[in-house]
């Protein structure tokens, strides 16, 4: 929804939040995952919650909130609380600020006393994090502290142990140290947000004395947006890549008209420097596994001449796909998504031309195209949108770019084979299918939250639930990784079977769409059958729950020779496979490595 995209009009959001919520809820096509969020505040949190709800709905997450009583964050976290326990939060957000700091250093205190105060203050938070981790077993989001509004010692406040600024900086460093070394805790960087907004306005005491808001009400959307970004990232809803225009987006000038030698790029003059800075910013994304592609109205020859300009920071090999032709940009955009094997909405469109942006965003549902205007602000427009909020850095992420490149290469190869089977055989695929292993819990939980298409039941799990299932004797868990001659695809398929006497209920079966039609689903089922046989299970029951996005697997069980045994009014179907009748292994093209 445009009103909720950067740069948003924060005052308009505050004013129209009821209307915006009504409109978001009226969007029927949107499939949203439901998440329970406990907001434990050290200030009034009502508007923060109301606005956060808008951003989350816009990200495809339908939140339910628990809100602590005013300033009861510590009590709620530290003591048994039936209501919160029954709520079973998926996320706990500690919305605290420097107004919650209990003791301030003064000139009368010795450095030793201040050190002890600091330890005591920090231990309040550490105890809360430890207790909620043990009791609620869910990710925790914690505000760090905004810098103080007043500086008693002036500049010295920053470097004297008696300065409150110094004290807050130390506390923030302790928070960072903890969050950087513990799983499942994420900092909401209030220090950065408030600085970005302007501390003087952010901490306007009017709102504290009037309403007990430690963040100025007009700044609430910036805080809410930031927290929503962390949450959507935790649940695997980050964007995956860029689709970039060339002329006047990556360099100044039009390569076809001006010639590559006259493009503005590089250190020679100001405009060129600004484009270089933007290119450097984009290039840094590739380390995060964010894919870069080109969508340009140009002859390929001209486009490449521009890209090969020696002063470019981005080189030809940084782009996984280059589309330079005279097709419409939305057509190219769809083709790029298809070749990468990702949903179009997971790519960001960057183009200086508003008409092209409109074309793409109107033609393709859910695509975001930041309204960039002047090259000096291209980077910040993208940066503040939080498209790629990094909550975890997995090995898969680091390898992702290679994976996209391999995908595109596979698609090119596919065209060379007469017969699809021949193509599959040529891929030399190897799968490793194991039970859920601790090292993969994070990625497994992430997959359950973001897979929509090849997903039979669309059940979502937290990392802790995954851990429990992995340890449960009543469950068979399968996690499939697939490798081929082009590279490693990482974890691509999951199955969870619940065992009840001699029946196995398939509660989850999902697969990443980038390896569709590769026989991996067959390999997974084969493995499940093997595991069931080891346990003398005689019957497998499969369930299909239709959603707006998983129609592709409506007939999967039928294709796998299950028999339909029931269907209810919601078109949810149940399928049976009788193992006593024998089972023919279905996978033909993948070499499966046995579990150790």
């Amino acid at each position, binding site marked *: 929804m445009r009103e909720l995209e950067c740069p948003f009009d924060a*005052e308009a959001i505050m*004013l*129209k939040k*009821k*209307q915006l919520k009504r409109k978001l809820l009226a969007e029927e096509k949107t499939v949203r995952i439901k998440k329970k969020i406990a907001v434990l505040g050290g200030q009034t949190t*009502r508007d923060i919650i109301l606005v956060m709800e808008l951003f989350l709905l816009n990200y495809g997450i339908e939140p339910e909130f628990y809100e602590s009583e005013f300033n009861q964050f510590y009590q709620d976290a530290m003591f048994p609380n039936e209501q919160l326990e029954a709520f079973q939060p998926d996320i706990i957000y500690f919305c605290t600020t420097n107004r919650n700091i209990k003791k301030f250093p003064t000139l009368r205190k010795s450095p030793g006393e201040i050190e002890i105060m600091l330890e005591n203050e920090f231990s309040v938070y550490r105890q809360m994090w430890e207790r909620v981790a043990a009791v609620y077993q869910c990710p925790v989001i914690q505000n760090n502290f905004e810098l103080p509004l007043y500086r008693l010692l002036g500049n010295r406040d920053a470097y004297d142990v008696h300065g409150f600024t110094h004290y807050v900086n130390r506390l923030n460093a302790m928070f960072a140290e903890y969050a950087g070394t513990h799983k499942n805790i994420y900092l909401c960087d209030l220090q950065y947000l408030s600085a970005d907004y302007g501390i003087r306005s952010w901490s306007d005491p009017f709102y504290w004395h009037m*309403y007990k808001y430690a963040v100025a*009400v007009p700044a609430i959307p910036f805080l809410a947006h930031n927290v929503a970004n962390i949450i959507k990232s935790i649940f695997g809803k980050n964007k995956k890549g860029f689709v970039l225009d060339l002329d006047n987006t990556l360099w100044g000038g039009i390569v076809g008209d001006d010639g590559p030698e006259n493009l503005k790029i590089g250190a020679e003059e100001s405009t060129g420097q600004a484009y270089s800075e933007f290119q450097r910013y984009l290039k840094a994304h590739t380390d995060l596994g964010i894919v870069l592609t080109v969508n340009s109205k140009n002859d390929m020859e001209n486009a490449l001449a521009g890209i090969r300009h020696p002063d470019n920071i981005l080189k030809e090999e940084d782009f996984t796909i280059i589309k330079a032709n005279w097709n419409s940009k939305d057509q190219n955009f769809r083709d790029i998504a298809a070749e990468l094997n990702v949903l179009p909405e997971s790519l960001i469109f960057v183009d200086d031309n508003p008409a092209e942006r409109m074309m793409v965003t109107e033609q393709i549902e859910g695509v975001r195209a930041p309204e960039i205007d002047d090259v000096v602000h291209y980077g910040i427009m993208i940066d503040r949108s939080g498209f790629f909020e990094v909550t975890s850095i997995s090995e898969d992420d680091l390898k992702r770019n290679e994976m996209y490149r391999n995908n595109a290469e596979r698609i090119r190869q596919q065209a060379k084979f007469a017969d699809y089977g021949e193509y599959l055989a040529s891929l030399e695929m190897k799968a490793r299918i194991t039970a859920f292993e601790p090292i993969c819990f994070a990625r497994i939980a992430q997959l359950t939250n973001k897979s929509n298409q090849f997903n039979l039941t669309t059940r979502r799990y937290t990392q802790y639930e995954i851990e429990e299932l992995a340890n449960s004797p009543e469950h068979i868990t399968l996690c499939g990784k697939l490798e081929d001659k082009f590279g490693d695809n990482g974890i691509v398929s999951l199955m969870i079977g619940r065992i009840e006497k001699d029946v196995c209920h398939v509660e989850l079966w999902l697969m990443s769409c980038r390896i569709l039609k590769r026989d991996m689903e067959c390999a997974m089922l084969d493995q499940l059958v093997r595991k069931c046989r080891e346990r003398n299970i005689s019957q497998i029951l499969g369930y299909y729950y239709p959603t707006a996005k998983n129609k592709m697997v409506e007939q999967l069980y039928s294709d796998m020779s299950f028999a339909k045994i029931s269907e209810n009014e919601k078109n949810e179907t149940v399928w049976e496979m009788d193992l006593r009748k024998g089972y023919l292994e279905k996978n033909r093209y993948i070499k499966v490595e046995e579990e150790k």
Partner: protein
Amino acid sequence: MSRAEILERLNEIFCEVFDDATLNISEETSAADIEDWDSMEQISILMACEKMFQIKFDIEEASMLVCVGDIVTLIENKIC
């Protein structure tokens, strides 16, 4: 700007904040008359007034508002 004109523009703000196009407020309207009007929604109303009339309320003024008439008076004093 007359009190009636101020009231008319205030009505637009109320319709927006409470997402109810049928609202028709008078100077006597108070929090008791509109179900969702509490101290929290008051923030949105005051923010919208500040923007629409290009004024600023101080903490004393913001604390004293009971009914719509109070808001009208306050705005009238500031812009006239």
